[in-house]
């Protein structure tokens, strides 16, 4: 496209939000921006306009640390203007469509179609239709193939980029792995392309495909056999690598210290310091445990310095110490001790999500919560020792009872326990064992807190995820799930125990979207046309739309969610290299079936492949060791 057209686009007017539109909204401040630390840059002075998009509402997206990290990195580049955009809730969407308002960047209020790049974060399978809905609200063609040089480049990252095929029709390029460096490289490629006198979209995609960690789906063709079984992905362009290796930042980059502070209360309304990335526990159901390897600890010094800047720049009254397993940080006690001393002069609460099930974790919780000990959460995940061995959740019943004892003894009144139902090899006996655990924990609580002791049980359906040892496992059969949930309800029907479980209706879809191949693109597209959006929100979920969309395409969710897979089978995410070898995952799966555990790899390396793949000098990368040298060529 010519530069004249470009200039015209760049001067598009701002979207006008009238009181008539905003006042009836449940929380109009979701849509007006202008928050503390929001970056208001000059539209005309910027060379690249990037819209970071989160396919869920503001309240959820604003709580995402990764999103804030990329927002700060992009806006720190002088010629880049980076706005945020979230999915408008259904009431706002309806008003926007009625008034003909396009989706816009929160800071500049320019229509999204005027941006150069729209970068989606894909945190969860059930957000996929929202991506389509947001593109449509922006007036941007939904299908990548229908976009040209006059449209924004649409890229995506986050955990969804590790199994990108269902979204391949809609996204021009996926960035796989840690986003801190690759985002900057993508912007550099884009800038160089933009400065050319003649620009073709194909050139841009070719240059992106040459970046490490970037997957351009248009350069691949899926193959199926005559029975419709997936056979793999064929690169059809010389710039397309056979496999795309995810990006890893070896040393955790400095985290954002000026995150946007919302006006309205959001899901996690607090300052966040990532104290560690990755996890060495090796739970076999956990995708995050694989795709965020290796463990990279942040040093105590750095955590304290970041915390100080964060609190000074935000005024937050709570600081979350984030990681997949906070108690695993080799310096965790020192971190808490130092932070408490550092902020002794003002009311500031610390929070420590993702605690292990042991009494050490209770000690940590006691350190950060001296008053108001209301509820503690533990995740034994399975009821019986046998099943916990299968999933490699290294928690013994005694660990849980000791943790419960320590907790109730020090004044906590409510313990919440997370379990999964439908795990591989699960039997009715395994589910009954949940009841025994729960009753024992309640009895311990009664000894210390009497009738005030409470146990909350939260159960979720296990959904097998790509890049885990259970990626070959079919989703649990519906009748088995129903039976197991009935047993769970039965064994937790005890005064003082409260059971909640997620309706399994969305689990089938989640599993199909997690394990599906490129044919799901048409299904997602059709389901969206039939009104599907906010599928993760139970009251918005439209099973009929999905049923029809699958049927019209001659498919069934079971084809993907419950298809039994073997080692030799091509998996729709095989071309994404997460750094852990398929052989290791398969060996783990076999160990699971034999009921064998694998120890935490902080002690001994089990050869998952990550160390060799990224030429790491050390793994895990602990805080107090000197940072590893650069990669050898």
């Amino acid at each position, binding site marked *: 496209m010519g530069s004249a057209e470009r200039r015209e686009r760049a001067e598009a007017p701002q979207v006008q939000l*009238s*009181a*008539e539109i*905003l*006042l009836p909204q449940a929380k*109009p*401040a979701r849509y*007006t921006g*202008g*928050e*503390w630390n929001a970056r208001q840059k000059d539209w005309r002075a910027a060379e690249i306009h990037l819209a970071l998009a989160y396919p869920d509402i503001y309240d959820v997206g604003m709580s995402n640390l990764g999103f804030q990290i990329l927002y700060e990195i992009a806006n720190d580049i002088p010629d880049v203007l980076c706005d945020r955009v979230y999915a408008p809730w259904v009431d706002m969407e309806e008003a926007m469509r009625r008034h003909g308002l396009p989706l816009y960047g929160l800071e500049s209020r320019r229509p999204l179609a005027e941006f150069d790049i729209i970068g989606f974060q894909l945190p969860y399978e059930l957000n996929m239709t929202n991506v389509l809905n947001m593109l449509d609200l922006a007036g941007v063609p939904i299908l990548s193939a229908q976009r040209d040089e006059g449209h924004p480049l649409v890229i995506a990252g986050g955990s969804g980029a590790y199994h990108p095929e269902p979204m391949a029709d809609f996204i021009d390029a996926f960035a796989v792995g840690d986003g801190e460096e690759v985002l900057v490289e993508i912007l550099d490629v884009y800038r160089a392309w933009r400065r050319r006198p003649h620009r073709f979209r194909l050139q841009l995609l070719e240059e992106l495909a040459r970046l490490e960690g970037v997957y351009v789906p248009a350069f691949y063709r899926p193959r199926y056999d005559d029975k419709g079984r997936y056979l793999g992905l064929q690169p059809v362009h010389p710039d397309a690598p056979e496999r795309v290796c995810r990006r890893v930042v070896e040393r955790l980059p400095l985290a954002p210290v000026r995150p946007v*502070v919302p*006006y*309205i*209360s959001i899901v996690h309304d607090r300052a966040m310091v990532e104290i560690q990335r990755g996890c060495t526990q090796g739970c076999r159901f956990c995708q995050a445990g694989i795709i965020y390897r290796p463990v990279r600890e942040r040093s105590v010094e750095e955590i304290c310095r970041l915390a100080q800047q964060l*609190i*000074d*720049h*935000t*005024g*937050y*009254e709570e600081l979350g110490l984030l990681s997949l397993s906070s108690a695993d940080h080799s310096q965790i006690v020192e971190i808490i001790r130092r932070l408490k001393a550092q902020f002794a002069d*003002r*009311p500031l609460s610390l929070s420590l999500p993702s605690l292990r099930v042991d009494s050490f974790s209770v000690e940590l919780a006691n350190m950060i919560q001296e*008053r*108001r000990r209301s509820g503690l959460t533990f995740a034994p995940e399975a009821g019986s020792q046998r099943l916990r061995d299968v999933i490699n959740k290294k928690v013994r019943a005694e660990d849980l009872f000791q943790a419960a004892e320590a907790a109730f003894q020090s004044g906590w009144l409510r313990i919440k326990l997370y379990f999964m139902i439908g795990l591989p090899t699960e039997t009715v006996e395994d589910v009954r064992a949940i009841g025994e655990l729960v009753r024992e924990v309640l009895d311990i609580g009664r000894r210390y807190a009497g009738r005030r002791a409470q146990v909350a049980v939260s159960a979720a359906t296990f959904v097998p995820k790509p890049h885990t040892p259970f990626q070959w496992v079919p989703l649990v059969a519906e009748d088995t799930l129903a039976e197991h949930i009935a047993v769970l309800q039965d064994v937790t029907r005890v005064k003082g125990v409260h059971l909640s479980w997620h309706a399994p209706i969305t689990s089938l879809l989640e599993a199909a979207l997690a394990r599906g191949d490129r044919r799901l693109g048409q299904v997602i597209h059709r389901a969206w046309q039939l009104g599907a959006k906010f599928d993760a929100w139970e009251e918005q979920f439209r099973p009929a739309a999905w049923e029809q969309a699958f049927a019209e395409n001659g498919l069934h969710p079971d084809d993907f969610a419950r298809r039994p897979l073997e080692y030799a089978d091509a998996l729709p995410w095989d071309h994404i290299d997460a750094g852990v070898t398929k052989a290791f995952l398969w060996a783990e799966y076999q160990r699971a079936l034999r009921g064998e555990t694998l120890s935490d790899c902080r002690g001994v390396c089990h050869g998952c492949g990550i160390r060799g793949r990224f030429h790491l000098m050390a793994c895990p990368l602990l805080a107090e060791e000197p940072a590893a040298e650069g990669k050898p060529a």
Partner: protein
Amino acid sequence: MNEPSAPCRLRVVYAHGPQLQYISHLDLIRVFERAVRRARLPLAYTQGFNARPRISMASPLPVGMAGERELADFYLTERVPAGEFLSRLAPQLPPGLTLLAVEEVPRQGPSLASLVRAARYRAVLPAHYSLAEVQQRIDELLQQAVLPRTRRAKKGRPTDYDLRPLIQTLTVEPGADGPVVRMTLAALPGATGRPEEVLDALGYPPARASIVREEIILAPHAEAPAGEAGLPEDVGEVPEESGDFAGEDAP
């Protein structure tokens, strides 16, 4: 409950601009709290498990309205001169909040909310309304002895009340964008006049965003000497604890 912990009480006059007209009353308190914390000013907190910042607003501003001279009391754990408070807090406020004045007030005095007597509003009507007609409608309305109205509460039953005694003044004048209706409405506990209701009674569809609260009128000092008359401190603070009640208290 506050005696030893809050030796300093500062009354802040501020403008609440249209940029922030869509945030709720409770959100606004959090905005102030975080700004005060960024300014490292010694904000006092309530005791107890759920420590709350000791910031008391005179009267919640309904969502969608701007306020030109809003009032809030900030309680501090140490004495801070009013000028210093202003100069440290001002740079920490987001666009849309502007500090106009700060003064120290007796910390034992009645709560700010209990001192509120009335509020002045300004509403700009669409330009196609003729000034003469608006004037005529105002005259007719003011001649009524009673103005029975029904208020639909968010929760509970609709209540009937008389709007007429809540209207203290009601005038119209020409303006650049259309006729400007000015009104002073009573704002007493259980008897708060709402400008949209007045516009509605005049036969104009209420468009809240075109309404500005110009000023909150407090009781003269003689009427509520510090520490004697007036409502006790706690009563005045009750509404803040009770959630989003902006403009919802029925007469």
